[in-house]
């Protein structure tokens, strides 16, 4: 009686989501006759506390009282000490036994002496609780329940889900029968073999069977044959593809980063990891540990690092001007909320602003837990760092090849340079590298003179710098100055002429030469600048044009030696004491400053001096090497880099403070890492990190994790959880419809090695699961929403299965597994994110027909045909999908090109069969698996015939339909083929096809 215990006092909104199921089909939960006889308003009272009032059993605190207190009283008298009124808390047994003013809040056995009872029954509007201002009100039935509870001794229990799991004796079916017999019901007969086979296929692998697969069980419906089929399906790789969807919803998996720009990121390897883990039946404890803390395991494998992408599915905001720290914190909070909700079914989210009003999680608890997750390196960066290279074997091979080719060309270049050095000495002859007296960097770099009188800039590297060098050229008559830029080894191990490894270019904004004249320096006029190479738009003349916004640069040849020559307008006659001062102004920014260079002077006739061009051999070598490196870089840049978790080193750990009212700009007290109390032993003698969280979540004594997971798996098979609020096992969630069954499943899951496949098998092997799903009036009356498993489950299939089934029935479905997400056709013009150039390109070939789980999911524009069937956007953790039944869904299955193409392919499959009636029968068989009846064939044939007449009288309509559905009519006349497309489309829209029954 999930609902009955919640009175109308819970307010105006709807109590819980699924009661809203838009189809409202699950709505019928109370005996129709009673409802019809009673005026509507009194239904409210009928429902309140119905469980306890109808039966004369004792009041149960957990079932009857706690829901009333938490919904009506805890807001002011609950665990949150910030908002607590009158210093009274009703969530604590000790507290209500203590004297308050004139008496005691609750005196066990004596309702008339209990202040709480007096206040809730007071006729005085100023005294009655809850107060008018709260807009909450207790019903007479609720008041009576509270009174009876006190009269019966005010027995206290913890909230049911926090109590230890007690596995009841017997089988799963015993638990179901127990609940049914209390209502005078029994299990239904077994469903037809064809129905059972379709049910198993859809539930276990998310795909329909072939009629032949169903026939196996028709011939041998024995339990042994049924079990063989179950085992076979559990072993299929499609099992992981189907069940991964549940996990990816929880993991808020998507292919983009979210928010304004919503740029793409590589998450596919993580999706494939989940599929593989489920296919391997990785136990939940390991599944938990690897995803939450794979990086903290000793020598983690690549797969274990990939698993940590689970918590990198959080969104990133790349909008200009945003505060990265703000969104880093948002991501960490999302990890905290998701972790607690996914494993324990508790909502921690509200505790980030104030202590939880209903469940025992305080503000400080929240930030202690947060402190554990607050220690990873990721920080809402544009590049999503840290990331992991995830390579396929082919990619590894190609990279090795590219690297080998770079090595080979580097050797070739060295050889060519050796050969050239002889010539170099000739071109070098007129130059002399001068004695360096001083060398200074304004930006604080160390300018070191090397043995070859070159100058290497080391140490500090400012965006802009100016080098000033004083030379002693000696007693000579100088005609020109030469600047050589020399490649030096950079931080990344590569060579370059500039200091920035990311762009090893330089820009000499200005080059000035002065000669010492007594105390002063006199400028020397420079003319006829020339260089072996200049970057387009950055000619060497610009280095002496008096402007610092222009200059000489050398990209893209920034990894080789360059030479520039500047003639003196008048020869300089120097003495031995003369000094020359050369200033290299480099003001482009971005650290485009010279890394190693040499200054030389000459006495030769300027016209004879030319900047050394490298020999043609060296030039070719250089170009080939540059091209090979470019190829390697491009390859490297396009590699899949998967965002992963990485813990900060010990000396960089963040200090965590409480965020007052959830505001990170308003930090409060410092908190140490910690785990919420009361859910099993806390780890002793080991650091409180993510590993400890993972172990704690799946410790034997944690009552929540097994219940939450068993409930989740039950819900995926039955369409509705035993605890309907799968996301909330706390005080405000719904209580289990069959507590014994829930604990039986929870214990079975935990005690049999946390095996998903074993638990699924136990459920599907039960008689309860195998029941027929027809709904008789008596059943509807007794168990309107099938929460007691009084019949086989019926519900509309999930979005991905709707798609995959249509593709499978028509024969289009691709069996390809894994890899990057794909883009099946969607209506044009949907992607219009701000500042995001990426576009949707409809896939051709196999990728057009992949399973729905591989469809590219852009958070701000999810694939419409899936979202209309309630698939999520991956923005936040989605615990369950609320099923809807809307006209927009009809438009998808009628008009979406994917479904039209499926209809055309199904029509094609039917062409091989002789006779219209046989075709229609086979069409229904392929779709519904069960044999059809003549009453079903008739309407389909009539549709086909009248479509045929229409298309024959309007052949252009036929060819238009063939075109848009990509039909391949072969020898069949177009009008006839088109009429079969219409018929196939009708089959693909059958309610029975969209329903799992």
């Amino acid at each position, binding site marked *: 009686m999930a609902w009955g215990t919640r009175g109308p006092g819970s307010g105006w909104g709807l109590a819980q*989501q699924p009661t809203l199921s838009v189809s409202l089909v699950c709505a019928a939960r109370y005996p129709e006759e009673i409802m019809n006889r009673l005026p509507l308003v009194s239904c409210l009272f009928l429902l309140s506390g119905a469980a306890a009032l109808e039966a004369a059993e004792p009041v149960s605190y957990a079932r009857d009282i706690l829901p009333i207190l938490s919904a009506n009283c805890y807001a002011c008298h609950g665990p949150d000490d910030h908002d607590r009124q009158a210093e009274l808390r009703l969530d604590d047994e000790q507290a209500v036994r203590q004297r308050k003013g004139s008496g005691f809040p609750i005196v066990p056995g004596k309702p008339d002496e209990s202040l709480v009872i007096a206040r809730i029954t007071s006729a005085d509007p100023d005294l009655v609780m809850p107060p008018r201002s709260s807009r909450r009100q207790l019903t007479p039935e609720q008041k009576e329940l509270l009174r009876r509870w006190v009269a019966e001794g005010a027995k206290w229990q913890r909230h049911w889900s926090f109590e230890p799991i007690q596995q009841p004796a017997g089988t799963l079916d015993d638990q179901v029968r127990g609940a049914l017999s209390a209502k005078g019901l029994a299990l239904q007969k077994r469903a037809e073999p064809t129905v059972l086979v379709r049910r198993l296929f859809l539930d276990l692998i998310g795909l329909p069977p072939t009629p032949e697969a169903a026939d196996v069980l028709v011939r041998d419906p024995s339990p042994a044959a049924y079990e063989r089929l179950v085992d076979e399906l559990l072993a299929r790789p499609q099992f992981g593809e189907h069940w991964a969807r549940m996990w990816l919803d929880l993991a808020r998996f998507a292919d983009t980063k979210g928010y304004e720009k919503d740029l793409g990121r590589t998450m596919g390897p993580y999706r494939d990891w989940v599929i593989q883990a489920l296919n391997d039946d990785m136990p939940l404890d390991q599944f938990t540990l690897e995803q939450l803390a794979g990086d903290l395991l000793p020598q983690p494998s690549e797969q274990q690092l990939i698993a940590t992408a689970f918590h990198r599915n959080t969104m990133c905001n790349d909008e200009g001007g945003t505060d990265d720290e703000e969104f880093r914190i948002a991501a960490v909070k999302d990890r905290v909320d998701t972790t607690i909700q996914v494993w324990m079914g508790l909502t921690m989210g509200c505790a980030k602003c104030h202590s939880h009003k209903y469940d025992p999680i305080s503000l400080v608890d929240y930030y202690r837990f947060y402190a554990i997750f607050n220690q990873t390196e990721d920080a809402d960066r544009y590049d999503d760092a840290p990331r992991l290279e995830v390579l396929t074997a082919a990619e590894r091979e190609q990279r090795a090849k590219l690297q080998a080719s770079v090595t080979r060309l580097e050797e070739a270049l060295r050889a060519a340079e050796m050969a050239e050095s002889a010539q170099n000495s000739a071109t070098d002859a007129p130059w002399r590298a001068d004695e360096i007296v001083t060398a200074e960097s304004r930006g604080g770099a160390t300018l070191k003179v090397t043995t070859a009188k070159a100058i290497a800039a080391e140490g500090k590297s400012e965006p802009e710098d100016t080098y000033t060098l004083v030379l002693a050229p000696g007693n000579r008559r100088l005609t020109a100055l030469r600047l050589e830029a020399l490649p030096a080894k950079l931080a990344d191990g590569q060579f370059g002429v500039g200091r920035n490894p990311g762009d090893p270019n330089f820009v000499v904004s200005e080059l000035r030469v002065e000669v010492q004249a007594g105390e002063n320096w006199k400028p020397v006029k420079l003319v006829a600048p020339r260089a072996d190479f200049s970057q387009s738009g950055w000619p060497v003349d610009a280095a002496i044009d008096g402007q610092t916004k222009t200059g000489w640069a050398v990209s893209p040849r920034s990894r080789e030696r360059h030479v520039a020559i500047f003639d003196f307008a008048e020869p300089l006659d120097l003495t031995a004491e003369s000094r020359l001062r050369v200033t290299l102004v480099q003001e482009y920014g971005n650290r485009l400053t010279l890394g190693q260079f040499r200054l030389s002077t000459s006495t030769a006739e300027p016209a004879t001096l030319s900047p050394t061009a490298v020999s043609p051999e060296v030039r070719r070598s250089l170009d080939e090497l540059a091209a090979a490196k470019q190829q390697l870089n491009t390859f490297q840049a396009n590699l899949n880099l998967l965002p992963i978790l990485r813990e900060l080193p010990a000396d960089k750990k963040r200090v965590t403070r409480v965020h007052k009212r959830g505001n990170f700009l308003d930090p409060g007290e410092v908190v140490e890492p910690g785990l919420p109390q009361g859910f099993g032993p806390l780890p002793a003698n080991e650091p409180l990190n993510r590993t400890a969280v993972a172990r704690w979540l799946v410790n034997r004594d944690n009552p929540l994790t097994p219940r939450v997971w068993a409930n989740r798996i039950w819900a995926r098979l039955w369409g509705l959880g035993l605890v309907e609020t799968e996301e909330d096992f706390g005080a405000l969630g719904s209580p289990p419809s069959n507590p014994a069954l829930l604990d039986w499943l929870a214990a079975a899951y935990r005690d049999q090695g946390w095996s998903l496949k074993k638990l699924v098998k136990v459920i599907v092997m039960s008689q309860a699961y195998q029941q027929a799903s027809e709904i008789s009036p008596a059943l509807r009356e007794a168990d309107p929403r099938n929460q007691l498993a009084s019949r086989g489950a019926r519900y509309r299939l999930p979005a991905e299965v709707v798609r995959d089934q249509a593709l499978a029935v028509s024969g289009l479905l691709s069996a390809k597994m894994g890899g990057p997400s794909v883009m099946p056709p969607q209506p044009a013009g949907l992607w219009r994110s701000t500042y995001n150039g990426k576009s949707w390109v409809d896939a051709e070939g196999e990728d057009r027909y992949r399973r729905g789980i591989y469809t590219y999911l852009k*958070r701000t524009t999810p694939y419409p045909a899936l979202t209309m069937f309630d698939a999520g956007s991956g923005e936040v953790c989605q615990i369950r999908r609320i099923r809807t039944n809307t006209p927009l869904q009809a438009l998808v299955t009628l008009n979406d090109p994917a479904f039209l193409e499926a209809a055309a392919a199904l029509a094609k499959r039917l062409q091989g069969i002789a006779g219209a009636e046989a075709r229609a029968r086979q069409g229904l068989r392929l779709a519904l698996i069960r044999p059809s009846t003549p009453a079903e064939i008739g309407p389909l044939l009539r549709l086909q015939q009248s479509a045929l007449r229409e298309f024959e009288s309007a052949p252009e309509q036929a060819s238009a339909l063939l075109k848009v559905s990509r039909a391949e009519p072969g020898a069949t006349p177009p009008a006839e083929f088109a009429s079969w497309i*219409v018929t196939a*489309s009708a089959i693909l829209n059958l309610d029975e096809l969209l329903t799992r029954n």
Partner: protein
Amino acid sequence: MTDFIDPVRERAELLTRRHLLQTGGLGLGAMALQALLARDGAAAPTPRANPLAAKAAMIAPRAKHVIYLHMAGSPSQLELFDYKPELQKLHLQSAPQSFLEGKRFAFIKGVPKICAGQFAFARHGQSGQYISELLPHFARICDQACVIRTVHTDQFNHAPAQLFLQTGTPRLGNPSLGAWVTYGLGSFNENLPGFVVLLSGGKTPDGGKSLWGSGFLPSVYQGVQCRTAGDPVLYLGDPAGIDRTLRRKMLDTLAELNQSEYQRSGDAETLTRISQYELAYRMQTSVPEVMDISREPQHVLDLYGARPGFVSQAEGADDPRVLYKGDDPTFANNCLLARRLVENGVRFVQLYDWGWDHHGSSPGESIDETLPIKCQQIDRAIAGLITDLDQRGLLSQTLIVWGGEFGRTPMMQNNVRDEFKKGFVGRDHHPFAYSMWLAGGGIKGGLAYGQTDEFGYYPVENPVSIRQLQATVLHVMGLDPERFHFTYQGLDQRLIGPTDEGQVLQGILA
């Protein structure tokens, strides 16, 4: 009042209807069922069966519809509604330290300079409000609107601020204003979506589709984006080669087969599916009809400056900055569509116009060159919308809201080296005080509400928070913002959040 979205009653009524369909409907063939479903009146799907059926308000409503005009990117209040002569005197002087201390800006760095309002203001209407020369048409009808000059928000980046304004939280996952209203009140035309979204300016607003999402509410309440190119609603059009007659025959066959499926299974969900296919069929006709503005007479088109059939160059352009230059009537077309939708019973129409983020980093995104173009694109259309609604007697039933997600700074954004340069005049995001206006049902026209200080930096009188604005919209529509909630994740979730900050602005109500 007490029958407002009461789940128990909703369920009871549904049961009654189911009962009717089962006892009276079991023996019916498909044809009879078709007739039953198609006919108006008591036997057709009852109002309660349709989650979008109109529902009673919680409190006396002052309006029945909302048209929300969101200027994505955020226009400058200092050039449009908040006249600040003091800025003229301080033009290009350094901003006082009090503006900068402890503040977070999106792009401003160091000490920026004060920037004078770039356009002239004059008093207009009987109310004598100051309105900018950029809005001559709005100036004519300014007595119909209440300009609030003191709206403040706590978000200063586009996506979070838009989400905060439209969904009550800067993060994703909560229902939008339109979804809340449609959930609370339903809609009036079961052949049209209850909450329609129309986009102009060539780009989806920064906050994406979550701005009209249903969050934790059932997805049927999410906004349906109607498009001006292609199918107005996704997958609405029958595929080429399938005409209405054939579609009808196909649906008849489907209904017949589904009906026998229902007889076998006893699953009422099947009946719902049959009726949803019928609704889809009707939408296929009704939506394109209402979306077809070419049916409007020329003088109405002129009133808005609308041009039927216009396909904006903005669609598919790569560089966002060219999108909102020049004479693009998409917003005007959308205003006219909004009127047609409201006239046909749609509850909530949300327009987003992209291109109001005038940082001054280029002439395409500047106060001095781009803002006049954007104003010209919306000014006639908005005045036309208000006039047209008024003439049809719809203005008193329709709440119109206009504004961005925050305002713009009185300081110039110091883009390239602080120079005041034509085409590069820009202002950064300003969350502390900005202008929005409301008009129509329940709103006191001709009122200028709230005062900012002499720089337009902070409110000095009647500050209005986003939550107050949200509360006021709900209140006008007949939903008590304090009590209107949905229980989710263990909390009574409200649009206005958990605090009592969201008080209704009684001062602006007629």
